[in-house]
């Protein structure tokens, strides 16, 4: 598999946290290739290295060793500002805690990445922001503040923010972790719809029921990938919502 084909490719990525006396190897040489258009779940217990992996994939952190290519760019060579630009243009983040700016309308939250993008005319900022809100079905909530929105709506605002700059990939860190079962499936339906439109989505979760909606599941343990599995028939979130199969999915047992 060459780097042109894969949107994400890591070769022997290692991350060592050095706290003076103790060296912790959080990632022990990860080789991973993700093709455009995948919907991939990264699973694993806490401490398995999945968050560290997400930070590196999200260009928030550098690997200690190994190479990371994102969309053909060798990320190791970039400085802080270039990393910021990569995050701005190529990656959309969705977090567990939504991470919206308080006292800031949905519209203003969504336009935020565009404000940090060089050379975007103001009318485009407006247009792109409205389009992104429309894609997550929140066109009529544009001027609501986060505290006037439900958890699911807040997460959809966050997804719109991740989408607004038309990134190559969306990285979602436990995107359903703070949501109830029905809303979680709604969010997964949104992700599946976006994925059908061709966006690569990588989501970190420790819930199998959420991973069931993904087409590929990777499991981390102790800094290594112990499972990398294609799912032949992922669940369809919008059909689950229609048929009301929420209880049978077992999401209610989640603590």
């Amino acid at each position: 598999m060459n780097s042109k084909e894969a949107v994400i490719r890591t070769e022997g990525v290692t991350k060592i946290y050095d706290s003076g006396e103790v060296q912790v190897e959080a990632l022990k040489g990860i080789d991973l290739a993700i093709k455009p258009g995948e919907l991939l779940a990264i699973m694993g217990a806490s401490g398995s290295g999945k968050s560290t992996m997400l930070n590196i994939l999200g260009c928030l952190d550098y690997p200690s060793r190994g190479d990371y290519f994102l969309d053909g760019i060798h990320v190791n060579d970039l400085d802080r500002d270039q990393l910021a630009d990569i995050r701005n243009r190529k990656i959309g983040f969705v977090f567990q805690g939504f991470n919206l700016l308080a006292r800031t309308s949905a519209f203003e939250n969504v336009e935020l990445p565009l404000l940090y993008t060089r050379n975007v005319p103001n009318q485009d900022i407006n247009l792109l922001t409205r389009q992104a809100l429309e894609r997550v079905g929140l066109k009529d909530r544009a001027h609501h503040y986060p505290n006037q929105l439900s958890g699911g709506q807040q997460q959809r605002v966050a997804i719109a923010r991740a989408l607004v700059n038309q990134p190559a990939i969306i990285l979602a860190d436990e995107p359903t972790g703070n949501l109830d079962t029905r809303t979680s499936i709604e969010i997964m339906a949104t992700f599946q719809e976006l994925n059908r439109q061709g966006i690569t989505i990588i989501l970190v979760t420790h819930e199998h029921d959420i991973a069931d909606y993904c087409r590929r599941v990777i499991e981390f343990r102790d800094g290594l990938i112990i499972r990398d599995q294609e799912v032949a028939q992922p669940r369809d979130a919008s059909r689950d919502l229609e048929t009301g199969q929420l209880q049978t999915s077992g999401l209610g047992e989640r603590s």
Partner: protein
Amino acid sequence: MKWKNLIKVAFKSIVKNKMRTLLTMLGIIIGVGAVIVMVAIGKGAEQRIQNQISSMGTNLIMVFPGSSQQRGVHMGSDQGVRLTLDDVEWLKKNSTLLEAISPMVRSDVQVIGGSGNWNSSVYGVSEGYLAIRDWKLSSGDFFTANDIRAQSKICVIGQTLVKNLFANEDPVGQQLRLRNVPFRVIGVLKERGQSAFGQDQDDVIIAPYSTVYYRLSGQPHIHQILARATSLNQMEQAQAEITSIMRESHKLAEGEDADFTVRNQTDIASTAQETTRVLTILLASIASISLLVGGIGIMNIMLVSVTERTHEIGIRMAVGARSRDILVQFLIEAIVLSLSGGLIGVMIGFGATYIVHLATDWNTVIAMENVLLSFGFAGAVGVFFGYYPARKAAALNPIEALRYE
């Protein structure tokens, strides 16, 4: 990130946190307000003292006979050489920087009239004397050039004489006998109080110099020449002009010592002005300290705000803000805060100055350059004290900032 967007982001964040904004600005508001009020009071005092001095006749130039030095030997005044009425005519004809010139003939006299008698001085002067001394009448009239030509036996008296001789009646129209010469009182001078040298300036009788010169003094010279310079700014030039005209009048050769002395009151004025200027500087520096404290207040709250907004900074960095974007955002916030604080401070300063003026009746002067200066200083304080917190915000690690709750 475009400047326009940066400013937009900074403004939004200021508007979103009104309480924090107000607290941050408070120090600057008080600082700028205090500077304006203090300087206004100081300047007001300066102006008031200047007015007082000029009302005593700052434009006044006096010519005395005799020089302090003659051929290296100290002679003192009134030695030998005299001032004459010819000198006065010569000055009148040739001067360009003087708006009024008067000779002065002084004579100490026993005054009889009204309810008793009094020992006073009679000053023989010309009709321009009141203008020269910047003096006004409280009642009656002053004499004219015609009275001088006619050697009229009329006079104007000061308040001390009114008190001692005409306690219960209007002195205007009454008779006074000065060394047995009857004079008619035609006017009363306004009260003037003590002079800078402790003299009672109200213990005077003013009469036409011709009358005093020919009827009372019996001496062939005059005691002083008084003149008023056209402008306070041209005192030096006016003095130099008088000196050169007088040298001509006395036919002094080049290099020969002058046989007269020219003096003015600007020295007194400048001393007093110096004093009030020191007062103004003192007040301004005290107020500036509060402006500085205001700046430290901005830094304080900005630092707290960086900590409080760590998570927000993390979000901004995650979606692509560069360090510089964060730095500039916080810096703009600090500048906008201090400038708006400065603006409010200016308004409050104006208001407080007016209230001080109403409450104490002090003279206050708001100088535009001071307003601009303190406003500009407020902006500089914002940049200076905003930089450190802004840099701290910009240096945050995005992962740690995101994790911060």
